[in-house]
């Protein structure tokens, strides 16, 4: 039997804008901090002809709260900071008893020269 592993996370708002030159910008601003059950930390590596791409996945489980429900409804508008990295939400699982919500989160490391 494993141990429940609670870790600190930061929930961020993601806003897309346009700068003076017409480039799209992404602004990430902290919304609130929380603690999530962390599971299934998984790092994977894809080697293409010239680059290594490290992509990481993790599963975070939160209590079912109004704020977390808001994230479920608009996953693209939120990002999660965990271990100082920026994670985006891929999949959402709402528990049928409405006690918890589980996010599968994904991030890419910057591509690394081989």
């Amino acid at each position, binding site marked *: 039997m494993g141990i429940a592993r609670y870790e600190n996370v930061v929930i961020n708002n993601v806003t*897309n804008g*346009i700068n*003076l*030159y*017409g*480039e*799209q910008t992404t602004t990430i601003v902290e919304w609130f901090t929380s603690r999530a059950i962390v599971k299934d930390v998984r790092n994977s590596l894809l080697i293409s002809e010239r680059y290594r791409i490290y992509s990481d996945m993790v599963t975070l489980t939160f209590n079912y709260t109004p704020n977390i429900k808001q994230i479920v409804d608009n996953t693209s508008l939120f990002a999660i900071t965990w271990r100082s990295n920026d994670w985006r939400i891929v999949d959402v699982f709402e528990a049928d008893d409405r006690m918890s919500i589980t996010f599968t989160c994904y991030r890419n490391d910057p591509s690394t020269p081989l």
Partner: protein
Amino acid sequence: MSQNNPATYAQAIQYQLASIVTPIPVYANFNRNFATEPKFITWNLRNIHQEVFTGTNQNNKSIDRPIFQISIFTTLFEDAMNVSNLILQSLHGYSGQFGGASGFYIAKADVDWLYNTYDNEIGLQQVILDCTLDIPT
């Protein structure tokens, strides 16, 4: 005449296009949110050239006649046509302040409605226009 600054042009084009077609978003080059935006416009700048006249004086230059391409992307054909008309009516033959308060004066804007097309990959209608500016300094 001194050489004009392309960075100033870029900001002025972005400002002017955005103010013409608001609330349709305007971007420099292609943007990555095409899947969620049924209408948007991108622009590219080219041919910034102040002809240099004979002489040892570096400031012996003509007016600038840069061209910027406007690409209209829409899901509906009708929208593409209507937005292109909006830009034509507003820009073609326009003379005066370009790019808002921090912009510059243009003697003339000349819009060339080039062609319309369809991008199969992203499923969007497109209209391509060229706009030539006459910018005295």
